[in-house]
């Protein structure tokens, strides 16, 4: 797998798929158990310092010093990266205004909200002008409004600096909205790698979902003979059909249903999303909603506890 310079690349997968592990290896925190990885031509195993100089990273879990002000956190970071005083001051001003924290920069981080901390961490990752920025689940546990704000910052980075950005997420819409290419990871393996548009196109068009209380198998046998349908799936009382052009295919389905005398109680049609792509490649849903949310609650709880 190769990621181009200036690309906004997404690593997509359920919790535990290996996204953070991959980021940890690329950022020299973990050493790879096998294989090799390079960041701008530098081996992450043997040229750690060269790699570290070129990367910025926003970790999944908080990594700020709570007792310092926002400004001090950034300044400390600048020192770690060997920036001199005037450059540090200049950069602090710039990144603070980028994430709209100008008015809170002299406040202690303890008093920041979750969204503000995240923004500060993004600002910190940008302090030393890295060639590539890793964002590990940048919007995990944030409210929709803050998420949208962070998306804006990320897009801005790409436009203004032309920075290479690698983002991990398990939110499908996030990857869809931001990334020029995504890799779908499951159990530590890349199962798909392409732009969101072509990944969705591969699915074979729109998804028609028909609710059929009785006789779903009968209709399924019938539609299997139709060439226009790319994929068929039946689940409980719902029949899902993937067709290139959903609108014009709809009447055909009704005609077929009438021929075999099966009643359709409701119909919905939607454009495919990355969730469908994931299901196609792994054969299961990206997340069992309840399990993930419980996990997230635990994570948030642990975060609060660690403060």
């Amino acid at each position: 797998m190769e990621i181009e310079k200036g690309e906004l690349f997404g690593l997509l997968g359920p919790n535990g798929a290996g996204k953070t592990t991959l980021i940890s290896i690329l950022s020299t925190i973990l050493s790879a158990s096998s294989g090799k990885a390079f960041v701008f031509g530098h081996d992450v195993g043997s040229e750690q310092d060269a790699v570290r100089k070129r990367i910025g990273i926003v970790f999944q879990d908080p990594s700020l010093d709570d007792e310092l002000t926002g400004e001090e956190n950034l300044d400390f970071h600048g020192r770690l990266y060997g920036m001199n005083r005037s450059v540090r001051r200049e950069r602090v001003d710039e990144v603070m205004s980028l994430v709209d924290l100008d008015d809170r920069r002299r406040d202690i981080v303890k008093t920041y909200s979750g969204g503000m901390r995240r923004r500060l961490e993004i600002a910190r990752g940008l302090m030393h002008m890295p060639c590539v920025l890793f964002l590990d689940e940048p919007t995990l546990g944030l409210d929709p409004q803050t998420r949208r704000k962070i998306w804006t910052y990320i897009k801005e980075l790409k436009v203004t600096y032309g920075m290479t950005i690698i983002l991990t997420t398990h939110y499908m819409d996030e990857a869809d909205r931001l990334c020029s290419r995504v890799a779908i990871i499951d159990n530590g393996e890349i199962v798909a790698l392409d732009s969101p548009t072509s990944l969705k196109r591969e699915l074979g068009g729109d998804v028609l979902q028909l609710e059929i209380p009785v006789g779903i198998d009968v209709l399924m046998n019938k539609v299997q003979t139709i060439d226009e349908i790319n994929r068929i799936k039946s689940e409980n009382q719902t029949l899902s059909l993937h067709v290139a052009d959903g609108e014009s295919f709809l009447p055909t389905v009704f005609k077929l249903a009438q021929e075999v005398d099966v009643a359709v109680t409701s119909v919905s049609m939607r454009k495919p999303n990355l969730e469908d792509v994931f299901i196609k490649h792994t054969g299961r849903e990206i997340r069992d909603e309840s399990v993930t949310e419980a996990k997230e609650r635990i994570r948030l709880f642990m975060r609060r506890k660690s403060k």
Partner: protein
Amino acid sequence: MVLPLLFLTILGSGFNRYFSYRNNVSYMEFVGPGIVGMQLLFASMFGGLSVLWDRQFGFLKEILVAPVSRFAIMIGKTVGAVTTSMVKALVFLLAIILGGLVNTSLIGFVLTLFFMLLISASFVSLGIAFAAKMEDPHGFQLIMNFIIMPIFFLSGALFPLENLPYWLNALTLLNPLTYGIDGMRFALGGHNVFSPMIDAIVLFGFWLGASLVGTVLFKTMPAS
């Protein structure tokens, strides 16, 4: 800093009347350097363990991805922890000198600072070594109960080591803090047991060993 203060004032006052050691050495005079050593031991060990908190709060990752050598990070941690523990212990040192509990000269004072530095550096390194190996701060209590307290009680900080039962005496001889406090006693009134040269050499050796182990463990420590 409360615990050493309580030991010095309450325990010191209480034992003062029932204490007889050599030629009229008062308990306050005897225990003064011990309390300085106690403060150094506690502050230094916890200073070293601060690596553990950095890891717990995720801040360690921020430092470990920076283009800074692991060795420099460890040195920085050590110097920082030594500084804070020295400042804390210095408060007690000045208190016992200004309070007239111990007699010392300028040379004695400088020599005391030298021993304090050795004690602090030794136990900071030991703390870092433990922090690098421990999973989370819950092991803290364990460290407190099974490492710091025995080191403190077996160091001769609170009572003279002469005439101890044989097995206890052997344990105190294995304790680096024994030599640190003995060195300080030499510099603060001359109530030492060993030669100050031996004190310095043993402490220096321990510091070298602890920092070596600490460095190796620190370099291979996980970031989170």
